[in-house]
């Protein structure tokens, strides 16, 4: 367990380091060195933008941009005054900056395994991560009493209620802990 943590820490340091590098150069290098889909990095890239983390992380966890494709983020950002029944409007300047961040880091922009899987063969423009086919497929066996019927979870939108590595971009089944149920290794 300890070993795993050290490994995770090292991984996240490496990914943070990489994402800090100039985007254009990094991308070209990346594409050359890692054939798409074959040598993709594990998980999803973590959030590295403080404005986004503040503005889009006040009502729920700041969803990692790599969890939705660019056209979904575009649609979501166009309707913030009625955002799943909430008002999440932003001043113009912040709106622009956040949209740019989301589009630059959406699934399919970087080479990450989970991001790639989430958008593979996707049709339409879903607004929810929890409606993506791969998401639905991976969660189909979890009974409703552990989600909606579970006051500590409430809905599938609360990734970080079950995925202990959600904010680091780590969604594998070894880092799942459903409140009131426990570890979920099958």
């Amino acid at each position, binding site marked *: 367990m300890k070993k795993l943590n050290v490994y995770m820490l090292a991984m996240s340091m490496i990914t943070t380091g990489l994402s800090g590098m100039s985007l254009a150069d990094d991308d070209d290098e990346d594409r050359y060195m890692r054939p798409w889909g074959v040598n993709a990095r594990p998980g999803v890239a973590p959030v590295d933008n403080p404005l986004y983390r503040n503005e889009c992380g006040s009502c729920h966890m700041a969803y990692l941009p790599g969890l939705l494709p660019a056209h979904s983020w575009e649609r979501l950002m166009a309707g913030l005054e009625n955002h799943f029944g909430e008002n999440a409007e932003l001043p113009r300047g912040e709106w622009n900056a956040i949209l740019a961040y989301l589009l630059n880091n959406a699934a399919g922009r970087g080479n990450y395994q989970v991001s790639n899987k989430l958008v593979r063969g996707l049709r339409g423009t879903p607004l929810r991560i929890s409606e993506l086919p791969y998401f639905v497929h991976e969660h189909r066996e979890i009974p409703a009493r552990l989600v909606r019927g579970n006051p500590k979870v409430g809905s599938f*939108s609360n990734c970080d209620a079950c995925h202990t590595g959600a904010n680091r971009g780590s969604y594998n089944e070894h880092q799942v802990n459903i409140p009131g149920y426990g570890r979920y290794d099958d």
Partner: protein
Amino acid sequence: MAIKVNRRMMSAIFLVGISCGLIVTAQASAVQELLAEYGKEGAGKYNAVNGENLWKRVQVDAKTGQKRSCVTCHTNDLRKPGKHARTGKLIKPMAPSVNADRLTDKKKIEKWFHRNCKWTLGRICTPQEKADILAYLANQ
């Protein structure tokens, strides 16, 4: 050795003192500036008691039939953490006396007044209402 530690402690106390001062000033200036702006937009003298009443007043949402108030997410005790009614995410305490980050940023205050008044009351708050609530919150 003893003197060295003492000096260190002194400077630590000094630094803590300065930063507390700065935080209090940041809060006071954001609140004071907003109160002045609300005044220019037509608010009369602010009244913290009216602010408290409005904060706790229960309103029935026209669409859902839900009972809503500012307390719904921020709880009855402003010194305790609140909980977002929809998502369950923890909201840090509202009272500046226990959370020094509160009410320090004019843009942030205005943004959440806009959102939360719409959600809770179904309309934006008037400058008078915002001044009253701000006066109530700033003293907590």
